[in-house]
């Protein structure tokens, strides 16, 4: 009796084990670390939408854990390590400040894949991904140049770092391609997310005569102020039309989903890598309109001919025919950056610490 029992058990376990194995294989555990909550309707919300696309694509083949409101310090290290310990096979850390914590934990878990968004340091199991946000800003510049009546554009920047400055300069290039008289003035909010400060900056811009507002901060506060004051503006990270139906011209939408899906697929197929190829800068995945990592929401509150020109600019960038930073480029204090016929390369973009023509003022040092 006892012998038979053992036999049956052995037989059953042999029978069942391949299923156990495959089900364990098929279900990929994915972790996400968020800086704020998806309720910011900006940066983190865009990542949340990406996560939802992952869920939709893989369904029950993935098991997703998220942790929100993780400050960029020792808490991040602990949370990322905890996610790794709980068996997540790929972990997306979705803010620049998670760079060191991600690298630290990645060293301890060589078999777990880490994806750090918007950073630049990679190792064997840490890949980085970023979006060419500036491409959308060129199109914003085109629309702003055609729509402005006062020829004054108000721009709210988060911090004077290369990523934000290249956005301002791309906006200026778009603006000047259609309107040489208009100028951009920049207010630094010194925060990525603070609806009160962003709203204050918007009010100052409007008081100074700006009728088009653009932002490189995360909340819809600026658009809400524009809506109240009859000004127009552009949404950031996600479609913010619901907050300002009469003010939003369009929004640059960060579309992380396809990137996440691509990387998880690679992991499932055993082909995960830290990336290389044409849409990379020094090995980082840096995708824009052409890879759908950046998309534009519907054009609204503008005449059809403006929308057509915006669409043309969008298509030009997407196909690669339109080069945003093509020479001749001159800084706003008259220094030549490159001559005609040349184009700035990606490395030069990350070294931008100057404003191009069309922007007033100086980059804070």
């Amino acid at each position, binding site marked *: 009796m006892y012998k038979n029992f053992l036999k049956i058990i052995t037989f059953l376990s042999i029978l069942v084990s391949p299923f156990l194995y495959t089900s364990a294989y098929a279900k990929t555990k994915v972790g996400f670390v968020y800086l704020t909550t998806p309720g910011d309707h900006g940066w983190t919300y865009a990542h949340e939408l990406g996560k939802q696309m992952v869920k939709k694509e893989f369904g029950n083949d993935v098991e997703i854990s*998220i*942790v929100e409101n993780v400050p960029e*310090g*020792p808490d991040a290290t*602990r*949370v990322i390590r905890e996610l790794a310990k709980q068996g997540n096979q790929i972990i997306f850390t979705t803010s*620049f400040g998670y760079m060191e914590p991600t690298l630290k934990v990645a060293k301890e878990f060589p078999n777990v894949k880490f994806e750090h968004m918007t950073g630049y340091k990679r190792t064997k199991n840490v890949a980085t991904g970023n979006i060419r946000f500036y491409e959308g800003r060129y199109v914003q510049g085109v629309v702003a140049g055609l729509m402005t009546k006062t020829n004054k554009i108000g721009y709210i920047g988060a911090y*004077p770092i290369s990523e934000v400055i290249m956005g301002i300069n791309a906006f200026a290039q778009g603006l000047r391609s259609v309107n040489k008289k208009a100028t951009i003035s920049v207010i630094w909010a010194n925060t990525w997310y603070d609806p009160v400060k962003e709203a204050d900056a918007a009010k100052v811009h409007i008081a100074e005569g700006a009728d088009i507002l653009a932002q490189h901060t995360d909340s819809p506060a600026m658009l809400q102020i524009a809506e109240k004051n009859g000004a127009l503006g552009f949404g950031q990270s996600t479609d913010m039309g619901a907050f300002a139906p009469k003010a939003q011209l369009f929004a640059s939408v960060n579309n992380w989903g396809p990137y996440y899906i691509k990387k998880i697929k690679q992991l499932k197929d055993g082909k995960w890598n830290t990336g290389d190829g044409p849409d990379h800068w020094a090995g980082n995945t840096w995708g824009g309109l052409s890879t759908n990592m950046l998309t534009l929401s519907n054009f609204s509150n503008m005449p059809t001919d403006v929308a057509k020109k915006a669409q043309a600019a969008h298509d030009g960038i997407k196909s690669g025919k339109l080069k945003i930073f093509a020479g001749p480029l001159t800084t706003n204090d008259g220094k030549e950056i490159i001559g005609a016929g040349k184009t700035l390369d990606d490395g030069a973009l990350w070294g931008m610490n100057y404003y191009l023509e069309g922007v007033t003022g100086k980059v804070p040092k």
Partner: protein
Amino acid sequence: MIEFTPRKIQSSFWAILSPIISIAITIFIGSLIFKILSYPVMESLYQVFVSPFSRPDRIADIFVKACPLIIIGLGLIFCFKANIWNIGAEGQFILGTLCAGSFALLFPETKTYTLLFSMFIIGFISGAIWASIPAILKVKLNVNEILVSLMLVYVAMLFIDFVVRGPLRDPMSFGFPLSKVYPDGAIISKVDFPFIGFLGQFHYGIFIILILCPLIWFFINKTLPGFQIKIFGSSTRASEFAGFNKNKITFYVLLVSGGLSGVAGVIEVSANMGRLQPEVSFGYGFTAIIVAFLGRLNPYGVVIAGIIIATAKLGADNAQMVLGIPKVVTGIFEGMLLFFLLAGETIQKYKISIRKDN
């Protein structure tokens, strides 16, 4: 009108029981909230309260999280005992970090721990100097120390922001606001436990609490200056009649509190970040105020309170990871816990009666 009359005899039985009852009520109401939001009740409670203790490395991480809270809280005991309201520990923490960190970055090749030792001293002095501003204004001009110390927090925040974006920015950081990495001699290493290895982020800096806590207990309870601080806090007039120097006490309690905040900053950044960044403190200086009061201004109480607060934070992270419970829900738990603990203490110390006004 509600009236609070102090109880003449405080029952030690209730002193022990009241926090237990408070925690029980928190758990009960918390379970109701989980039930209403249709999360599994037992599993949720487990994640919030028990899971932080479920693995050695998790327990170690509780101490990592609690370390800055406890050190700042220990310093605040001096101020609050003396009825001096130092609300600016956050700023003193930041300034201590900034000065000690800048000093470390001046000696990029140093490998010896003399550097770390000097950083502790610089951290203490610079935190104390930051706290001396409200102290001097209070002593000389009778300016409210609550406002001055609080506002200096924002000055310190903007100052470190400026320094990390400007003079101390690492040229290799692609314009991102980060300083260079500290030299080896300025890093507090993680503890390599025999047979176990590293546990979470557990670092040698945490051991300073073992020295500070009994030292401060001894100072407050067994020495004359400690006695003076207590008398000064409970009755300024009485302490003046006794001939205690009012200005001196005000000045020194702020200095010590600011200094310890600065030391907390040095430990936190040297152990966990190893470089300066715009945000080095995540509200530690403010949370420590709660920790100090939750610990009833007793050094050992502060250690326990720090651990409770840290546990709640870690539990909230785990609950979200495993069950997807948003942080706002677990945040309610923290709030309730504080509310009931403080309410319990109030009821235990005061008799509450409702009196009808004419």
